[in-house]
């Protein structure tokens, strides 16, 4: 009897093991569904604000309508998880057919052979785009994506806080943008008029945004990398000027002490809370700003030797191994004049097609706001783009984040900081 019971129990154990092993196949097996005869499915992963999500949904419906039997499965994920997931999926061989990526990320993925080379299929589209953005989706002379939109930062201000400091007129063109000295003078005035718990300004260089500090470097006439993109060029008088200038933001209490490059709080959050009078912010934040409980306006980023801007915006890229033909068709569709116009118009973003430059895309923003961003975007140069899109961008971002934090908050000298950035950057690009 006991033998029978043991046999029964052993059998049950073996059965449970078999069931477990069988179920394990579900962890590694191919996803169910997918394309069957007569129907084609495309997977598309992106992060998206509410307005972007609505625009993507509309465009996907249009693509499906124009291509009978085609289904596009969008996967909207939080930005914070986007690239950890994409990296894991690429490693595991189950990446989406198409995903959205920042311009600075394309070189890294392309260098690792993870992206579909679009040179032959979409190379003919090159002339339709603003050259800097086609450059931004290219690596080693080959195109690996399509520039879907761009965004840029400008100075957004709280009108009443500015007025309380006696500042009531603002630059209304790129030419009349505040100089570094004029901007510093405005912050000095604000510091005198604001209570200690409020601050004149917050820069948007937090949470992997440290490359935005390069705007100050470029405006001061400096470079991060030399023309060959193989050596650092930051140890220079322009580098010293940009770093000394931005270090003073913290030393003079012009920005909140917790708004450094390693802060976990976005600058726009403190501005919306009424803690800062000004913030550098991207146009993609305008839908949120419309809910501000105070009057606000927008003006240009300060300039020094020249005006400058961060390379905001994103491209769409395709991966290898899926339905490459359909993925290419989808990318082509997403950068048609109509699709880009719809996307940028609804999501308050800027186009990358030359045919749309200067056109009103029906942005739902207060009058006069979007033209400032449109003008500001013209300050980015091809040389800036080349430095911001090297394959080692991810490592460079880490170097900038750590070293700027040390300079801003831990008393690290300007000379040491520039030397450390140079060493870190050269190690990254080597």
């Amino acid at each position, binding site marked *: 009897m006991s*033998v029978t019971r*043991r046999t029964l*129990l*052993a059998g049950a*154990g*073996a059965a*449970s*093991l078999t069931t*477990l*092993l069988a179920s*394990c196949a579900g962890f590694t097996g191919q996803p169910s569904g997918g394309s069957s005869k007569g129907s084609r499915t495309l997977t598309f992963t992106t992060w998206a604000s509410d307005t972007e999500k609505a625009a993507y949904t509309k465009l996907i419906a249009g693509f499906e309508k124009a291509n009978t039997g085609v289904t596009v499965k969008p996967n909207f994920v939080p930005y914070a998880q986007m*690239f*950890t997931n994409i*990296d894991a999926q*690429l*490693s595991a061989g189950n990446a989406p057919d198409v995903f959205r990526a920042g311009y600075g990320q394309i070189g*890294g993925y392309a260098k*690792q*052979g*993870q992206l579909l080379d679009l040179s032959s299929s979409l190379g003919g589209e090159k002339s339709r785009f603003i050259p800097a953005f086609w450059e931004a989706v290219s690596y080693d002379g080959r195109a690996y994506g399509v520039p879907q939109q761009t965004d840029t930062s400008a100075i957004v201000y709280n009108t009443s806080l500015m007025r309380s400091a006696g500042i009531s007129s603002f630059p209304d063109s790129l030419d009349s943008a505040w100089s570094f000295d004029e901007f510093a003078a405005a912050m000095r005035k604000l510091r005198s008029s604001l209570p200690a*718990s409020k601050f004149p300004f917050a820069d948007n260089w937090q*949470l*992997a945004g440290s490359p935005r500090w390069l705007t100050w470097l470029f405006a001061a006439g400096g470079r991060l990398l030399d023309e060959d993109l193989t050596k650092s060029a930051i140890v220079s008088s322009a580098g010293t000027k940009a770093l000394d200038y931005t270090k003073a933001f913290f030393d003079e209490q012009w920005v*909140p*002490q*917790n708004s*450094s490059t*390693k*802060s*976990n*709080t976005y600058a726009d*959050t*403190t501005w919306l*809370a009424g*803690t800062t009078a000004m913030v550098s912010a991207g146009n993609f934040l305008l839908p949120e700003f419309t809910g501000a409980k105070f009057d606000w306006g927008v003006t240009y980023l300060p300039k020094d030797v020249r005006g400058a801007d961060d390379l905001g915006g994103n491209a769409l890229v395709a991966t290898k191994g899926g339905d490459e033909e359909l993925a290419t068709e989808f990318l082509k569709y997403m950068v048609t004049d109509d699709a880009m116009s719809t996307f940028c118009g609804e999501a308050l973003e800027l186009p990358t097609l030359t045919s749309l430059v200067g056109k009103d895309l029906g942005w739902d923003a207060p009058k006069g706001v979007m033209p400032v961003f449109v003008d500001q975007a013209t300050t980015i140069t091809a040389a800036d783009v080349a430095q911001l899109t090297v394959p080692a961008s*991810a*490592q460079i*971002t*880490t170097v900038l984040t*750590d070293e700027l*934090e*040390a300079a801003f*908050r*831990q008393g690290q000298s300007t000379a040491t900081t520039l030397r450390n950035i140079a060493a870190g950057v050269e190690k990254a690009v080597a």
Partner: protein
Amino acid sequence: MTGVTAGAVAAATARPPGSRRTSRRRARLSETLVGYSFAAPNLVLLGVFLLYPLGLAAVLSFSRYSGFGTPEWIGIGNYADLLSDAVFWRALANTTVFTIATLVLSLGLGLALAVLLDKPLPGRPVFRTIVYAPIVVSGVASGLIGVLIFDENTGVVDKALIAAGLPAVPWQSNGTAAMVAVILMTVWGRTGFNMVIYLAGLQGIGPELYEAAELEGAGAWQRFRSITFPLLGPSTFFLLIMNVIYSFQVFDLVFVLTGGGPGNATTMLTTFAYSEAFTTRMQGYAAAIGMVLLVLMLAFAGVQWRLNRGRDVTE
């Protein structure tokens, strides 16, 4: 049965010694197989989701790998780099400080609350629930709550301090204050668990011991020191191990609350490894950090087991 002796029956029915051994071995083998078949599902899960990735991570720690393509074998290169990496040593020091602080505070508070709430107080179940409730809050949610509390510009703590005419504390821009914020949020989340374990331990101590001690004239402190504390030894040992492991593994709360900053003031070994793996894409280096963490934890557990072997105190 006539003519058949008992000895003959015994001789006829008895198996030879060798056969008996074989039968016993078979029974033992069968017993073993049954045991393993019961353990198999857990062993398979453990192997697939713990030991196999652990083995891969160990191999990866000797490689240079960005997450794509084939890892490049570099021997002990990553470990050599770790030795000269100031951020690694800072992360190790931070993790040690954090572990000691959270251990002392959460065990002390857990014990104090357990002793208090073991007594027949009015509303005792409500108080127990309130203290235990934070344990069900995820680390990410704790971190977000921490941001609301400790934000320098909009947080409730600094607003309350300013309203009371006191200076605000730079919870996010001062390294020490940021570490204190992380420790406080961790202690808040963990004290309830420690209290429950101690409560279970307290309920295992017979009241006659306290009655006898009282008859002998022992005061409250003497009763606690000589009866309660020693008899809670097994609970303390269990909590010590669990809390040290939890503290060394802290990630989500730090990631959300401070991101390891300001500077590297709250960077822990886990957040450092994450940053190396997923921000700078040096996954081999990150795996080496993970291996160091594993060795430290194994060493700690080994020392603890050795020191505490046979030291369980019972009534």
